[in-house]
């Protein structure tokens, strides 16, 4: 079942475009954005490796259960609360910016709330399913959409209109000292590994996460492509003018022989699926974290009959999205997404530290439990200790 872990890595990596990561990096392209990239790759990989190794020690347990095991109840609930906020906000930002993108490029005449409504309904529906169904959906949608997305990326990289000189000029800025915010934003590409917080519940005892070298490979590729390809198309200066930079970039591509001439539309349709997938996962995680705060809702990963509380939580999240959409605009959304990217990084670091602590505590308690039988030879404690 380790493949499900990598699905999270892949789609979160692809979603950096909707989290406005490239726009942020590009705005710092002459002030340390480039040198932040290798640093982010190193840091992101490190965090991903550490967290995944830690989660391997707790097979079948999600983060809330691990909290419950090692921390007092109030602290566990507090940490769950942070989890809810960070995950739910991620979903809300993506939902808002994507429905806005749709409004800009697809249905400019319809009210933005209609687009938001359709997508929010789909997200409520999808996020309220059980974890196992969500995982199956991840797999299905990624298998359906990634081949085309990779094809678009490849087409962009091989396009004759891609100006390698511009890329070279920006790449030479690597000597500038890295900017902090670019660094935080760029680590987002590796955030998919963090989704194990909830989906670790579905792992079986004794699972081993092999092929972890895929994480830096995928992350590096996505980061470089999403940063340099727009620069190659728009030039070093004009590239700073756009917020939804990748939508504009794919609009530079033409399919000569297809029904659809402008790659933009294909790209947007595929990213609709991916954005919904992202929101589904974030909201689902937030929902499960919320449920974990109450003893009434024990973790159930395979539950085709949806309990009512799932609906309520997801509808509440959708309502917050509408409120957010009412009070915000593109610029404010950009600021919020920057804040989110930064705080997400720090929470990831804290989480990694906590997990390392938990692993240490787990080991200690195991050693302690293992120690007494040697002296007393009590068979009952031996059974629990092993």
């Amino acid at each position, binding site marked *: 079942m380790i493949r499900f872990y990598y699905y999270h890595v892949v789609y979160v990596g692809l979603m950096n475009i909707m989290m406005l990561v490239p726009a942020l990096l590009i705005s710092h392209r002459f002030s340390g954005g480039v040198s932040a990239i290798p640093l982010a790759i190193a840091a992101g990989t490190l965090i991903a490796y550490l967290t995944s190794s830690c989660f391997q020690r707790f097979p079948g347990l999600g983060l809330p259960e691990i909290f419950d095991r090692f921390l007092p109840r109030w602290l566990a609930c507090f940490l769950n609360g942070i989890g809810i906020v960070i995950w739910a906000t991620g979903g809300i930002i993506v939902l808002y910016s994507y429905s806005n993108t749709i409004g800009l490029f697809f*249905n400019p005449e*319809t009210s933005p709330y209609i687009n938001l409504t359709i997508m929010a309904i789909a997200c409520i529906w999808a996020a309220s399913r059980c974890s196992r169904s969500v995982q199956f959906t991840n797999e*299905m949608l990624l298998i359906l959409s990634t081949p085309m997305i990779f094809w678009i990326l490849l087409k962009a990289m091989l396009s004759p209109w891609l100006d390698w000189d511009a890329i070279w000029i920006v790449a030479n800025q690597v000597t500038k000292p890295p900017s902090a915010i670019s660094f935080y934003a760029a680590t987002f590409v590796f955030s998919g590994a963090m989704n194990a917080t909830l989906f670790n519940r579905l792992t079986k005892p004794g699972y081993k996460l092999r092929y972890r070298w895929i994480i830096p490979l995928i992350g590096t590729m996505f980061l470089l492509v999403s940063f340099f390809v727009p620069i190659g198309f728009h030039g070093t200066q004009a590239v700073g003018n756009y917020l939804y930079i990748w939508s504009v970039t794919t609009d530079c591509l033409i399919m000569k022989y297809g029904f659809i001439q402008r790659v933009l539309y294909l790209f947007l349709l595929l990213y609709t699926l991916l954005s919904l997938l992202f929101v589904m996962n974030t909201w689902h995680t937030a929902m499960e974290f919320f449920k974990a705060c109450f003893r009434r809702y024990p973790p159930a990963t395979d539950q085709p009959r949806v309990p009512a509380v799932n609906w309520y939580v997801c509808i509440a999240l959708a309502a917050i999205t509408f409120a957010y959409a009412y009070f915000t605009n593109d610029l404010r959304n950009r600021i919020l997404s920057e804040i989110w990217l930064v705080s997400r990084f720090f929470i990831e670091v804290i989480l990694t530290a906590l997990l390392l602590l938990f692993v240490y505590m787990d080991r200690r308690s195991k050693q302690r439990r293992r120690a007494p039988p040697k002296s007393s030879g009590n068979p009952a404690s031996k059974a629990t200790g092993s």
Partner: protein
Amino acid sequence: MLKEVRDQLGNPDDLITETMDNGYTKMEFCFFPGMCDINQVKDGILVPFSYRFDPDEFRRMLHADLGFIRADKPEEWSGLLLKGFVLLQYEGETFAFGAIRKMQTKPDPTQVEASLQGPQSAYTEDLDLNLNLIRTLYNSKSLGVEWHEKNDIASQSRIMLLYDRDKVDPTTLKEVRSRLDEVDKNLILAAGQLVKLMSHKRHRMFPVILVTERPDRTAMHLNKGKIVIMLDGSRFVLLMPVRFFDFLSAMDDYYEPFWMSRFLIVLRYIAMLLTLTLPALYISVVSYNPEVFRVQLAFTIDGSRAAVPYPSFIEVLIMLFMIEALIEASIRLPRFVGSTAATVGGLILGQAAQQAALVSSIMIIVTSVVAISNFVIPNSTFSYFIRVLKYLFVAVSIFSGLIGVVVTLFMLIVYLCNMRSFGEPYFALFINEKKKKNKRNPAHQKAG
């Protein structure tokens, strides 16, 4: 005995009740001539009793012959008679003689699930013959066969549960049994009815039970550890638990060369996607996002719509109504009239509607692609579901165009992923945990 039987059954006119006397002794004797094979009755009872009567031999025959069952309980008598047994009372003992008239003696040819190179025989409406077909194809000692008998079922439909004892998942089997127990309808006539009664949610959008008429498909699924339910009097058997992909596989996929079958499978999936989304895509492209298509194509579509006086969704609904009516008519009509209907319908759908500027010519192509693609789906139940589901897409596209279609597709995938067929995931790829389990235990691989 005769009086009791007559009382129990309300003295029907088609029941023969006789007290026979061959000069030496007497025998009470009753049966429904319509339900019994009269030749068997003659050879089995009448000849030994009359022309070649030997009291010792006759008694020995009654006690030793497999065809005679002791039936001492008066409350069983009417049930046995109704199943086609002959009841006789000789020297104070009552026996039932099985002389049930069998309509079928050989397997039917396949009618619904045709195959080019596979076996051509299908199930019949006789359960014993069907069981023979499965036993022949799945000649394994691990085949488990269970009666499922319920007393309150008026038609006394015999229901049988088959599975491979080594491969079946015990929790699934338990679930199937309990679902079968919950069925409380007292008259089950067809396999499809049982499917409906066993699927918990009645408003489900996809079937979770595969209905098939092919013994080879049944044997293959038994080998995969699936459970089979057979119903007497039905040409179809039920397979469960199944997955989405089982509905899109024809048996020929297993018999044809690798690349050919892969090609056909891909073709089927494309056809399914087309029949599901094409009308919706037409509406959204014409009414919402003409700029998505390349300019030339957008112009062609719009040009062909120039004379059509109403919005695209009305056009689509008209044409879809026509094609659905045509399909329905050609299925239900007698075969001779059916071809006429198809010709007339084809003419109307093809030329006339377009020339009368009721619909655009592109719409006619869309309609025919939808109809033909729908026929590509090998399972008829599944193709019904797809046929209906297409209207959901149409409805969404009327209100929100292309994005709505994609979002609906997403929701459909979520829906499918959330479905379970008897506890097993319905729409998940690479579920090979079972196979691994079997590999670990080599005894499982041997069977079948």
